[in-house]
């Protein structure tokens, strides 16, 4: 059998094989079309999202960078001799707080003047001796409250426990204790 004859036989055999057809598809065509439509819709939605998201991100990043740059450039100028936070606190203080601060400063100034005018007050030991002498009987210095040490009679009242002593009162009491006879009446803060 020649080569060409063999090739012809093979071609005829191939043609007979090719005449066979694949059997009917078991694919559910409608279902495939439906699922494909869903896939296309998902793709379109994802495409729309990405269309919006990427330009937004692209636009936002330079804006953020520009804002940071402006902040960096402006910050040294706004500092100056007065820190920003301190000046902001002063600006934010209410009138009542400002009055209270002024009164406190005035009281401190009065105390300082009184101490300076009184001159030397003696040794610290004598002050301590005075405090110890005022201790209630049977009590040590460590077991009493500061108010019991300063004024045991006043501390014995229930008023101490109920109402805390004000800042001005504390200063006045200390002044009276440390500088007896020199306790000129303190100027009360104006309300």
């Amino acid at each position, binding site marked *: 059998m020649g080569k060409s004859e063999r090739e012809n036989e093979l071609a005829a055999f191939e043609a007979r094989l*090719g005449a*066979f057809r694949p*059997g009917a598809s078991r694919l559910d065509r409608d279902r495939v079309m439906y699922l*494909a*439509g869903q*896939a296309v819709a998902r793709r379109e939605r994802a495409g729309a999202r990405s269309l919006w998201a990427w330009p937004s991100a692209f636009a936002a990043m330079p804006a953020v960078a520009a804002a940071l740059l402006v902040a960096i450039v402006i910050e040294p100028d706004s500092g100056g001799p007065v820190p920003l936070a301190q000046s902001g606190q002063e600006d934010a203080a209410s009138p009542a707080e400002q009055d209270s601060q002024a009164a406190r400063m005035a009281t401190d100034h009065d105390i300082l003047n009184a101490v300076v005018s009184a001159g030397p007050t003696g040794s610290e030991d004598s002050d301590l001796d005075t405090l110890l002498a005022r201790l209630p009987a049977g009590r040590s210095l460590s077991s009493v409250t500061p108010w019991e040490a300063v004024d045991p009679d006043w501390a014995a009242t229930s008023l101490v426990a109920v109402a805390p002593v004000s800042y001005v009162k504390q200063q006045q009491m200390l002044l009276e204790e440390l500088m007896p006879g020199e306790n000129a009446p303190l100027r009360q803060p104006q309300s």
Partner: protein
Amino acid sequence: MNDNEHNTTGPEEAQRLGRLIDSHAAALELYAGLWCVSPEDVVQEALIELASQRQWPTNPVAWLYRAVRHRALNASRARRRRQRHEEQAGLLRSAVLKPPPGESLDAEELAAALRSLPDDQREVIVTRLWGALSFREIGEITGTSESTAHRRYQEALLRLKEKVSPSWANPNEKTN
């Protein structure tokens, strides 16, 4: 319009997909049946994957064969791990080939002859004879050259001819 055109959307895309199903689904199932027992599922997944492509491939038919091959091989590997004999029983059932009117050889004998071929030869026979792909396309799908695909095809034809009954393999005897 032929199936090789691309970059369409909407109803036109749906029409193209419908035509692909009508003309290629059966051959694709036959092809997927070389490896797995539920080829229709594999073909369905491949068709849906094609539909979800933003831009259709230049040659959607070849793309489908490649996608089906990939999915069928994956399904085959997964199933083979579970039960090997079921896998073999499901390959190339006779029902997937339909003889032409007046053909003396039944599809069962042809399917048996096909099953006896090596995997690469069986694949090239199915894609060439019933998928109507070119040897270049077959080479791209199987990862070989065009000439290798052609050589395998020739070898597979000769083997098949030897496997089937002599009266069927020789057309002259049939006509006589």
